[in-house]
């Protein structure tokens, strides 16, 4: 963790105080940490556990359970391709392969220059205008595999 990460972590954990009477909400705390640092570094688990009065195993258990909690930082742009059934029916697989070929990394990986991280995601509820590709916060519908190069051009 960088110095900046450490102060971000301390701040996020401070915001979880006071601990609720029903016990600490580990998921909420981890989402707060992720929102501050972009991810939850595994090296922060002891500090999070201490701040929440939970065991390290409890923290690690929640962290590994939820797919939207990430333990590594992403590239400058996060590309997520929907794998829902409507997207599958509408050639979403072909779109995914086109992106994979274009950026040159497999799902779950970040390109060497740190520009893109590629992921597959579960249904995002955009089924009526599928197939869907989400880049950062932008949702793109009716994506055609041949449009991929020009679409990604917008994200430098």
């Amino acid at each position, binding site marked *: 963790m960088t110095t900046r990460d450490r102060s971000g972590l301390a701040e996020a954990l401070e915001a979880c105080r006071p601990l609720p009477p*029903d*016990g*600490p*909400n*580990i*998921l*909420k*705390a*981890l*989402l707060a940490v992720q929102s501050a640092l972009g991810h939850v570094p595994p090296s922060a688990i002891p500090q999070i556990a201490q701040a929440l009065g939970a065991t390290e195993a*409890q923290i690690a*258990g*929640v962290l590994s*359970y*939820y*797919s*939207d*909690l990430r333990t590594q930082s992403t590239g400058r742009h996060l590309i997520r391709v929907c*794998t*829902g*059934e*409507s997207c*599958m*029916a*509408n*050639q979403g697989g072909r779109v995914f392969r086109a992106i994979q070929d274009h950026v040159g990394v497999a799902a779950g990986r970040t390109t060497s220059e740190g520009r893109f991280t590629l992921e597959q*995601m*579960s*249904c*995002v*509820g*955009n*089924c*009526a*205008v*599928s197939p*869907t590709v989400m880049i950062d*916060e932008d*949702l*793109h*519908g*009716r994506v055609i595999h041949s449009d991929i190069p020009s679409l990604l051009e917008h994200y430098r």
Partner: protein
Amino acid sequence: MKMTRLYLSNDTSSLAAGAGRLADAWNERPEVQLIRTSSRGAFFLEPMVERDMLNGREAWFNVTPEDLPRIVGGIGGTPVTKLPFLQQQTRCTFANFGITEPLALDAYQMKGGMKGLTAAWNLSPQAIVEELHISRLRGRGGAAFPVWKKWQVAQLIEAEQKYVVANADEGDAGTYCDRMVMEGDPFRLIEGMLICARAIGATRGYIYCRYEYPAAARTMKFAIQKALEAGLLDFDDYPFDLEVVVGAGSYVCGEETALLESLEGRRGVVLAKPPYPAESGLYGKPTVVSNVLTFASIPNILAKGGAWHAALGTEGSCGTMALQLGGRVKQPGLVEVPFGLTLREVLDRFGGGMAIGSRFKAVQVGGPLGSLFPESQLDIPICYDAFANAGAILGHGGIVVYDQETDMVELARHFMAFTADESCGKCTPCRIGSVRGREILERIQSGQGTAEDLILLSDLGETMKTASLCALGGRAPYPVETAIEHFGEEFRQGAKFASRA
């Protein structure tokens, strides 16, 4: 200069279809005033722009920024009331869609909103539950449990703290109506939850919204703030505390006990029932957990009476269902109709047939755990009982149509891989069985499958169905088995099948 008022949807799918591009292009134009509404749900026509004409709203479809002069000039529009896709629907829960601004509380009230809550205040808690009993409303999340029973259990238990939780973890692939409700008519969800709170005596409520729906969570937070400022969350002697909680990507968290575990901040693992959440739920207190669409159906029932609702639909499935069309149909979008139409009628009448270049192969109803139907089985009526009798589920109303391009072995593998990814790990048949199932299907896919593999898959399916606590493990075999049942030849094409023939 005369300003033309234009209505443009701000729904996530409308934006994904290009509505944002229109807004960017037109926001600064002096001749137009843009009103950002919810979406009609006719997504195949999005981005769609509407304006007021002498005889009501007219619409322009699949609009590009260059279409502005035509629209301002009033040329080439279609009266919204003449759109067959909308005209043939019975919009009750989705009556305001495309018409109002989602966060305009006054517009919601002008359209009859909060009448259900007012009616509830004039009834005793027991009478509210009785009204729901008369309405015969069943939960819309997938389990179709009678809503009144859940409420009655929570109502009858004495507890200093009770909770109302909206299940907004709409994880079934192919469904998006909860997202639309939260983004497009958020006060309807709040009103439904307030009626429930009044009926069971709850003082706190949570909307558990999935991580993938940031716009829905944002809109709900704004709407709660507005409702708070308007005094709607003030009960007689206490305030009702309502909060949006965002999940972190777990399909199983749509199951109520896992959802409550997650709401308490733990791993979203399914718990054995009983006790049911209505008896002992969040932090051990009586908790009503219902789907967003269920809560959104309740204001109309209280405002118009349970008998009004019971008169819609079929005997065992009363009211309307929000069906969500996706996949290779010509007209994907939201369809609200009373229960009882056949699947074929829905696909023809609203889906408009197949997309260009597509031939029908199969349709899946009810999300990733739903069964596949071939052409010969499309005459099944859309209602809970007919689907249950067929060993299928309506689920949350997702309908995805596949065409001739779909590889059924790959689709079956996808379903098993989905379950393997999403299994919470509590039940061994689901945790291990889904991985073994995926492996068998991968073997078949690689041409190494044998006839024994299909028998093994079937055995595995039976074990998962009978020995899993929740619907993920219990229903996961169905899409795979129906794929094999109807498209068996695709599974038997491997080399080892051939060598034995």
